[in-house]
């Protein structure tokens, strides 16, 4: 029977080890872009 504490841990493969941090960075950049776009759009700095 597997140890429940141990079974919750995971070991990423070589590809995922690089992909996940890149995805997280992309999401942070997306968040920053959305914040800027929201402000510019709502104050009519970007014509809609």
């Amino acid at each position: 029977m597997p140890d429940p504490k141990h079974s919750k841990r995971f070991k990423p493969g070589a590809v995922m080890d690089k992909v996940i941090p890149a995805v997280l960075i992309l999401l942070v950049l997306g968040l920053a872009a959305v914040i800027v776009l929201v402000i510019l759009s709502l104050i009519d700095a970007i014509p809609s």
Partner: protein
Amino acid sequence: MNILPWFSSIVTFIFTALVYNRYLQRGGPHLLLWAVGLFFYGLGTLAEVTLGLTYSAFMLKLWYLMGAMLTAAWLGTGTVHLLIRKGNTANLLTWVLAGVSLLAVFLVFSAPVNNVAYDISRPASEQYKEIMTRSGLTVFFTILLNIYGTLTLVGGAIYSAFLFWRKKVLANRMYGNILIAAGALSPALGGTFLKAGLVDFLYLSELLGAGMMFAGFVLATQKADD
């Protein structure tokens, strides 16, 4: 008429029922606030559906109130409750949000509208500024609620995913939070497609947003318990 907002509404209301059911089973203010935020999301897309069929000033205002002001902020406050367990910060923010939301309801529903100008063949987000006169206070609270909601909802999901990644635990929650963050960003980025004249992508981004958050929630809660 575009069929995609119909699917967005169906997906969102099913998602709302699932989250509310989980709240009834387990409790936790974060689940209740997420259910409220998702219900607002569903009301927003439902208003979008009706605006594609016929014009109603009430529906346009409901769409703006839910889509542009309240949804992200209520979902984000749920995330605040999940991440900040100590002290009274989360409760305080919830009460402030409740007050601001009531003010937003008053501001939006008292805004004058130009009913003649609405064209049901165009999406509401493309023409609401021509129809609804927003006061400076309305614009201010829209920006404030949007930024607060997006930062807490998306930022909270990214932060959670990062913690699970760093500790290399609970892979399902890490992937779930990544999906939630991407899903929450999707409708916001959809506005950019609209400005490029790609209306279908706007509706698709709303559906993808609801679908990804739904999938992320299911993934994050399927194995491990709170």
